[in-house]
């Protein structure tokens, strides 16, 4: 007899964790831009000075976060990915980075969680954009328990954190470590799985003789962990990321600068805009991120 386990969406974990933390941390501030604001109605009534919904004004929201941070507060800023990262990108660069202050940016939507809304609500380039800015930690949890741990750590710190939440989640949580977690060991190559692609990667490599590394934190990139894994296997590296294909290619190149290696990158296609609706699983197939597609590609690559 199977046991039914209630799962929470990462978004719900985020809401619950922030509400709980507001009660104990007087320096915690939450800024929303309508998205998810209804989840904080009670918190906004309880903490009107620290829970603020700005309306649909994302640029000002990031600037306000900078203002709070300049005065010793810990701002958490939340909305849908394109409106959190792409629209106010200069504010992220200047009002947080250039001011040399910290914040926790929490996105939902991932690369294509809400496919029915089309391209306007997809932001597969978000992590690549953060790669252009110094000093950002990027978390891509693959399970709600990982998200909670990463969120709590982020709230208690003072750095610049991007927490990328998605509807898609793995069946089980992996250990939340600073670097890669070795989930399998093999000799024909090294496969790096980031966040919610892990279940598909494990299924795709179930019969392959490869090392599987997992990361819920992809920036900073664990150079030492990758080097150690490659030292014990052939230097065939596959990186599977749930966002823009090749986002971490430069990190692999840097980590293995003195090691002859081959690299295959999997992620959201960057060569064309996929104009299609449907379900996330459909787009996993279109981008080659489903288990079957990954198995085909990885087995051909490490042959």
């Amino acid at each position, binding site marked *: 007899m199977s046991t039914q386990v209630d799962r929470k969406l990462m978004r719900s974990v985020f809401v619950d964790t922030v509400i709980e933390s507001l009660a104990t941390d007087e320096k915690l*501030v939450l800024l929303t831009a309508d998205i998810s604001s209804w989840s904080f109605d009670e918190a906004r009534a309880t903490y009107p*000075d620290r829970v603020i919904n700005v309306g649909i004004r994302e640029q*000002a*929201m990031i*600037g*306000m976060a900078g203002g709070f941070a300049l005065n010793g507060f810990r701002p958490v800023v939340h909305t849908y990915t394109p409106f959190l990262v792409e629209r106010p990108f200069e504010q992220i660069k*200047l*009002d947080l980075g*250039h001011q040399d202050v910290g914040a926790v940016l929490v996105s939902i939507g991932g690369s294509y969680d809400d496919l029915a809304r089309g391209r306007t609500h997809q932001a597969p380039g978000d992590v690549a954009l953060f790669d252009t800015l110094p000093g950002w930690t990027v978390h891509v949890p693959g399970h709600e328990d990982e998200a909670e741990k990463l969120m709590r750590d982020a709230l208690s710190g003072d750095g610049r954190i991007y927490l990328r939440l998605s509807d898609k989640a793995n069946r089980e949580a992996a250990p939340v470590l600073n670097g890669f977690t070795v989930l399998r060991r093999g000799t024909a190559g090294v496969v790096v799985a980031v966040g919610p692609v892990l279940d598909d990667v494990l299924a795709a490599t179930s019969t392959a003789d490869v090392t599987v590394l997992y990361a819920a934190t992809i920036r900073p990139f664990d150079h030492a962990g990758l080097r150690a894994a490659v030292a014990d296997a052939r230097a065939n590296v596959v990186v599977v990321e749930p966002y823009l294909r090749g986002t971490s290619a430069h990190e692999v190149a840097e980590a293995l600068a003195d090691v002859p290696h081959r690299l295959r990158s999997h992620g959201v296609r960057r060569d064309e805009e996929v104009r299609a609706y449907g379900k996330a699983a459909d787009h996993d197939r279109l981008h080659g991120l489903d288990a079957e597609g990954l198995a085909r590609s990885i087995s051909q690559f490490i042959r």
Partner: protein
Amino acid sequence: MQTTEETLRGLFARMVGDEKHMWAAASTLNAIWVLYDRVLNISPDNIDDPDRDRFFLSKGHGPMAYYAMLAAKGFIAPETLDTWTQLGSPLGLHPDRVLVPGVEISSGSLGHGIPLGVGTALALRAERRRARVVVLIGDGELDEGSNNEAIAIAGRLGLDRLTTIVIDNRSASLGWPDGIAKRFEVEGWRADTVDGRDHDELYRALTQAPDGRPQAVVAEIRKIGEGSAA
């Protein structure tokens, strides 16, 4: 102690090489002069005091007047002005808060000061502090959407410790047909329009009692020429 025109002119003259923005620097001089001499609770002695007033030069262009005032008030040594824009100098064409004591925000790209000011005013309110936040922008900078977002938010939230000074030298390409003050008033701000070179008018506008609304002071600057900054 109030700063003399002779002192400021001397400090101002130590910085050369940004003729493009001399106009901008000159247009902000009088507002900054009044603020630092007569209005704001800011000094090198309270630079880390959370109850100090904050001044944000949002239009980072042409910061010579700002640097001159910081030197006059002792935040930086006058000799530092001589190094302006040179390799190793803390003073660039746009101010950097990490490099320059007394500079509250790094600026230069337009449209960032009011949102940062709104966040700061909210942070001060959350801690029940009565410090003021004064943001200085240009009329051209008012075009930026981010400023207009923040103006709306400040009005709705009644941030009456927030003041925005708009230096109006009519540089907005498409202008403000109903006037700049109106732009603020419709969003719930109190707005006053003054002669941007009249120190007493500036002082009176900047020292009105809070009334539950953020305040805009439109400082009109007309026909400034070289050497007429003060």
